[in-house]
């Protein structure tokens, strides 16, 4: 087992641009990024006959690319992708990086080693960001999405997952409990995170049993899609364009702070967040996640969310038994349990040739879910 501190770069683009991004990655020698399908949502005018007015959700498919690179190459890789996909323009996609710990089995394995043909231009990115992930029942995601969009933070993205936990210990009766989840991911500024978290908990009624789970994670820096609204503009530039230019000039988003002071909501004050947690993300070959999740839960993890990813095999082959079908397992645990759980997962065969897995560890400063009346 080897632990490497590295940068995890996530790039989220519309499918129309996806090929450009894939080409940019392979141009840098990163042949096998993880790709997950998701949907990205923005607001639009209601059309046709509508009694209620208001705004409708416009949904488009996005491809979410994830790679890990050595810390020193972080900005170089990000700049290259921004250049290739023209992410400095609004409405094409988002890119952000997190500083995480990568655990691999093989000493020789590790982060993607990149090769650069030319120095890309330097783009100014926003720092001090916080990611907020909300896991809710399939079909409930749009409630969170709408709340996030109406706060005007960023363009949310939704991915699908399957929950594992208590359900799997129930025997066949488990089929009566739906396991399908939607994971809503938003990135906001550090200082807005608290307010946004409270607002999303309210919107999703996450303080009630069985509604879902929400957690935050630090994001080092990023360039986010600010086009929240698609519709007619009656001005020379859209608000989104203006916002992204101001962000760029100021190099920070402090100026668009939305939540001032602490929340005055009495219920929110009483709310106790779970703190000092860690997010363990296991990446492995398709079909192995169930067993690894079981091992993790035996070691004390309370639940996990599984998603499907693909990791293309480069056409020139030579990778033997590698498979493009991959699974991701996400677990939020108290920091103290990180080590026993990682060890248990490794013992369950994470690093063998059949599984070919790796683990990403990232801090998770705050989380919230219904914890009972205690």
């Amino acid at each position: 087992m080897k632990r490497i501190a590295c940068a995890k770069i996530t790039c989220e683009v519309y499918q129309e641009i996806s090929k450009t991004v894939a080409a940019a990655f392979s141009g840098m020698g990163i042949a096998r990024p993880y790709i997950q399908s998701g949907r990205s949502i923005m607001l639009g005018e209601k059309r046709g006959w509508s009694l209620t007015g208001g705004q409708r959700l416009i949904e488009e498919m996005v491809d979410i690319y994830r790679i890990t690179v050595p810390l020193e190459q972080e900005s170089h890789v990000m700049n290259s992708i921004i250049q290739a996909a023209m992410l400095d323009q609004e409405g094409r996609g988002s890119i952000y990086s997190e500083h995480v710990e990568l655990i691999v089995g093989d000493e020789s394995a590790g982060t993607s080693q990149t090769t650069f043909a030319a120095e890309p231009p330097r783009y100014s990115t926003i720092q001090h960001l916080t990611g907020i992930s909300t896991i809710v029942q399939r079909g409930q995601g749009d409630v969170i999405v709408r709340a996030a969009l109406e706060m005007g933070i960023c363009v949310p993205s939704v991915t699908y997952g399957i929950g594992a936990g208590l359900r799997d210990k129930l025997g066949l009766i488990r089929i009566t409990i739906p396991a399908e989840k939607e994971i809503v991911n938003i990135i906001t500024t550090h200082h807005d995170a608290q307010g946004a978290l409270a607002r999303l908990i309210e919107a999703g009624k996450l303080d009630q049993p069985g509604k879902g789970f929400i957690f935050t994670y630090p994001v080092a820096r990023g360039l986010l899609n600010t086009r929240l609204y698609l519709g007619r503009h009656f001005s020379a530039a859209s608000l989104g364009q203006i916002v992204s230019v101001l962000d760029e000039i100021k190099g920070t988003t402090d100026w668009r702070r939305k939540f001032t002071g602490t929340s005055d909501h009495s219920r929110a004050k009483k709310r106790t967040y779970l703190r000092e947690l860690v997010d363990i993300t296991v990446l492995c070959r398709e079909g192995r996640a169930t067993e690894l999740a079981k091992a993790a839960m035996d070691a004390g993890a309370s639940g996990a969310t599984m998603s499907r990813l693909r990791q293309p095999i480069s056409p020139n082959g030579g990778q033997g038994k590698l498979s493009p079908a991959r699974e991701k397992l996400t677990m939020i645990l108290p920091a103290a349990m990180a080590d026993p759980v990682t060890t248990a997962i490794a013992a369950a065969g994470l690093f063998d040739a059949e599984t070919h897995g790796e683990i990403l560890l990232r801090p998770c400063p705050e989380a919230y879910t219904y914890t009972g009346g205690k």
Partner: protein
Amino acid sequence: MAAEAKKDNSGKRIKISFQQAIGLILPYIKSRVMEQVRSVWLIILYLVLFQILVLGIPILDASIITFGLIMVIVGLTFFMEGLLLGLMPLGELIGIKLPQRAGLAVILAFSLVLGFGVTLAEPAIGALKILGSAVKAWDAPLLFLLLNSHANYLVFAVGAGVGMAVVFGMLRFLYNWSLKPFLYVMVPLLTLISIGASFDPNLLYLTGLAWDCGAVTTGPVTVPLVLALGIGITRIVGSSDTGGASGFGVVTLASLFPILTVMLLGIVFLKNVPQPMAETRFLSPDNRTTALTLFDSDQALLRYAFAHGGKEGITSYFDSDDARRAFVAEMSGDGSERSRIFGTDEPRFMSWVARNGTVEEKMTLFGSVKAAREYLNTPAKPVVLNAADLFLRDFQSAAQAIIPLTIFMLLVFFLILREKLPRADEIVFGIVIAVAGMGFFNIGMETGLSKIGDQVGGKLPSSFTTLPLEEQRETIRNFTPEVVEKAITVDGRVETFFYRKNGRAVEVIPYSEKNYDEMNATYTYVPQVGPLFGGERSFWGVFVALLFGFLMGYGATLAEPALNALGLKVEELTVGTFKKSFLMQAVAIGVGVGIAFGVAKIVWDIPLIWLLVPPYLLLMFLTKMSNEEYVNIGWDSAGVTTGPVTVPLVLAVGLGIGTRIGAVEGFGILAMASAYPILSVLLTGLYAARKRKQVVAGNDTDGSPETVEEVAS
């Protein structure tokens, strides 16, 4: 296992109380049942209202039909859940493991066997034979041959077609081929063959059957399995750019290849059959050797002649009136000889004599003319619903459709892939309830949905033509022609009628001399309905029939389990951006339009070619314009639509109108129901692509309402 022992109770199964279990199970059952109620209420309500309000005809056997409709809902609930828990995960598992564990040859052999096997198992092909029962041997000898004595060859041809389709489908996934070239080659080829076939009267009639075979073969078991398999395989072999909804397209090929194989089969057997000819010529003794090529024996021909032939036809069979009389006399005398020769067709012989025989013949067989008439008037004995029989038969066919297939797949899984089955309890449970669901569904179709469909389908022509209601036939006793009155119509014809007092009400009943029986002083009256609006085949009357066709296609499509499964998969693979409801609406509208055209085809006797070639030409163009994803989904949903709900209902309408109007065959409606949904899905796809371009381009330049979206939402 050691880890489990260490921890106190983690890893161990949690015991839950009976009450807790009920608390979990009830909401689960409720949600699943409501889902199916939502998908079938439209078609049920529609059929009932149409019959009661528009046609003004009461529903027969209402209680049995209600039972049947409940069974349909129960059956669909079980079957869908079984698909999602058992059959589809199994298919997907094999799809993922097969390319990793087995070589190309094994994958292709597996595909071939699977494709052939599902065809043999799929019960829908039986539905085509029912439709074929109306085909007369002399009208369309080739069609008759393939649907009757050579029916096995037909099934094998379709099976070979589906097998080839699955093989090519898997090759497509493995080598990342586009679906478009297959369409560009297959569709024009099939169109050319069909056009060529229209020059031969025998092949002309076969064309409809061939296209329908393509539509029918892809049923509720095949589609989800093949889809899941494809989705699994593309997850393993997909290159980086096959994101989103990939894994579709096999269903399309499975709809196209059987058309080719059936037409080829027809061409092979063309030499063996005579040309279509008049009934009298066909049955005449000079033609006997030719006619016998279509039948197994002399006796079979004789039985068929009495079952389907008219007076001249039978006379021609015996070459002279005398010979016929002698035969009838012989048959009248000896009951045992009669049963030996006619077997189960004996009532057909009896009714032929009662209907067409001379007075003398009727006397010898029935004893009196009155007895002969009564024989005809006795309503066919209502088939006693033997619950045990029905249950056994329907569950047997359900088991036959699912179990051998899953055993084959499990064998492949354990023997070739040598894997442990994950979540085996769920998969086995899923397969069991899929079988149960299909059994319940079959019972429900038989006693409910297709019954009411038959009633409505049979009565539908009354919207544009006069239709006697045989089941409401009544005999008025002590009738005397003195009560008959005359009246003049607006266009100056004299018609006769009489009044009948029924309680306090007075009814007007048209009088026709031939229904008056002087000897017994009775008048036989068959109430008539229709046409709804003025004259025969009036525009509005036909319009109602077309509208009915549209709404029936629309409603039935929403209830199709295979389409529901496809929709769920599409929604999941596109992370909710391509909604299941959106796909289903697009497909349902397409099917509705297709069926309306199909009804028009039969009413106005439009050649199938005219209604199939233009949409397919347009489809070629739209396919060229559309992206791969929508081409696959669009063409697949076409193959999927014609499933166990749509097919019987559509066939009932086709038969109802066809027999009323005297069309030779009612085939082709299903093919129309497959062509038009492709159009609607591709059009919505083009709209979605335009919208996507706007999203990426940024400014939503036109703020005008989108018509396509409004139609679909």
